[in-house]
């Protein structure tokens, strides 16, 4: 019964590793009780959601079934959660409103995008990846992270960035989304369930940085201090 899973792990170790590394930040987050602060509660939900989706995709892949539907579903949800953190973390009310607006618009857009590419939603076997939504998610996330960086530089509210949980998280996501922003649109054409096209090492980059951002989140959460959560 486990042969399928072990087979998948040995065939694609780099793709499977992030699934299990996701557990690390979840444990640290729970241990540090970081969820008492709203943004990290959202992060916890995101990580658990990501873990669930990853496990489902892992399971389907192990049984050689098309799992791209779940990938497409995860895009608007994960964007909603991740951008939701920035609503709490950004200071300026204009930016907050902008983020909130982007969440609504992006959710609508990504559903439309998915429908458009897959006219027949019941045909899960030929389901294919959304072409635009993931790229736009990357760009928007990079934008919010840069805005957050801009705010911390102007306001000087964090004396030591190395101890700031959210700075670590932002660095992780910035590198991840930067590495993914050009690959994402290509994936639509290459990651067809039937006869996929290899793009070589480039495909691995995003997995490497997925691991990297999970580790960065873990390091950041490790620095989380309850008494200061309001500040950082």
């Amino acid at each position: 019964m486990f042969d399928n899973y072990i087979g998948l792990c040995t065939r694609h170790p780099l793709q499977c590793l992030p699934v299990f590394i996701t557990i690390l930040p979840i444990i640290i987050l729970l241990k540090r009780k970081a969820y008492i602060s709203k943004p990290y509660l959202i992060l916890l939900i995101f990580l658990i959601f990501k873990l669930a989706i990853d496990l489902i995709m892992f399971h389907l892949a192990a049984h050689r079934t098309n799992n791209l539907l779940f990938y497409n579903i995860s895009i608007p949800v994960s964007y909603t959660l991740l951008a939701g953190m920035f609503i709490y973390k950004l200071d300026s009310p204009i930016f907050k409103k902008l983020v909130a607006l982007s969440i609504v618009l992006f959710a609508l857009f990504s559903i439309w995008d998915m429908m458009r590419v897959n006219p027949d939603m019941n045909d899960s076997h030929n389901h294919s990846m959304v072409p635009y939504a993931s790229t736009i998610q990357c760009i928007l996330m990079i934008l919010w992270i840069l805005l957050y960086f801009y705010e911390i530089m102007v306001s000087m509210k964090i004396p030591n960035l190395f101890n700031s949980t959210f700075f670590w998280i932002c660095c992780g996501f910035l590198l991840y989304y930067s590495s993914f922003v050009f690959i994402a649109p290509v994936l639509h054409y290459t990651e067809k369930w039937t006869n996929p096209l290899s793009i070589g090492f480039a495909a691995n980059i995003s997995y490497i940085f997925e691991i990297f951002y999970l580790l960065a989140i873990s390091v950041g959460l490790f620095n989380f201090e309850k008494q200061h959560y309001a500040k950082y």
Partner: protein
Amino acid sequence: MQNIEELKFALLLATLAMLIMAFFVITFVMLYQKRKFEAEKALNSIEKSHSKRLLDTALNSEETERRRIAQDLHDDIGTMLSLTKLSLNQLNKIVLEPDSKERSLIHKSQTLVEETILHVRRITRDLVPTTLERFGLSEAISEFINKLEDNNQLQITFHSTADDSMRQQPKVELTIYRIMQELVNNAIKHSKCSNIEIELEINSEFIFLKVADNGIGFNATQLKEDNLVGLGLLGIESRLAIINGIVRYVSPPAGGSLAIAQIPVAPISEKKPEPLYPFKRAKIS
């Protein structure tokens, strides 16, 4: 196939460029933040030392002003009073009848003038602690206590581990003396105590001044939070800030209150302290 290879290469290149950019952004944010905080810190320390200097000058000028007033009182009023006393003595000799009305009037004036002279002397003494400057802290505190005990039911004990040869910088001595004054005054004014203990301890590193009373006690942190501290406690802190000292207020379990001031011993500068004594020349007779 050629196309695919090119695409792969372009993709790799673009991703690499993006990553390098992201990396630079992060480095930039971190460096910028660090620089800014360092600049802020430097500014803060400049401001702090500046305000310290301001405070120092303010307190210095206060002491100078006291000295000037004491000097004026002594030189002008004191001299005039002495002359008045002399004239009254002479007048006393001129008036002949022993039991005349004039004679008793002159006698009365004489006593008044003598009393005034005593008062002026006491005031000048209070304004400038001459004993402190001449004989050091232990002597000055003993004298201060003696004066207080004379007209009070209160019992004040003073214990010092410092011998008189161990003199400190005049500024430090004066600070400790003024702090002791304020602490004892506070104990008398507020604590309803019957006993005050003063302790002066000097070792090679620190000077400790402890003033304890057996009165009602008080909570300094609470007072600070409620903004109830008066000029007295504030003055103690600002005087101490200049010479890098600290003060702690403890509530001993036995009741009452205990104030502990700790001041680092600074090496006495070689140059002779400027003469602080207005009473060098003559003593009031």
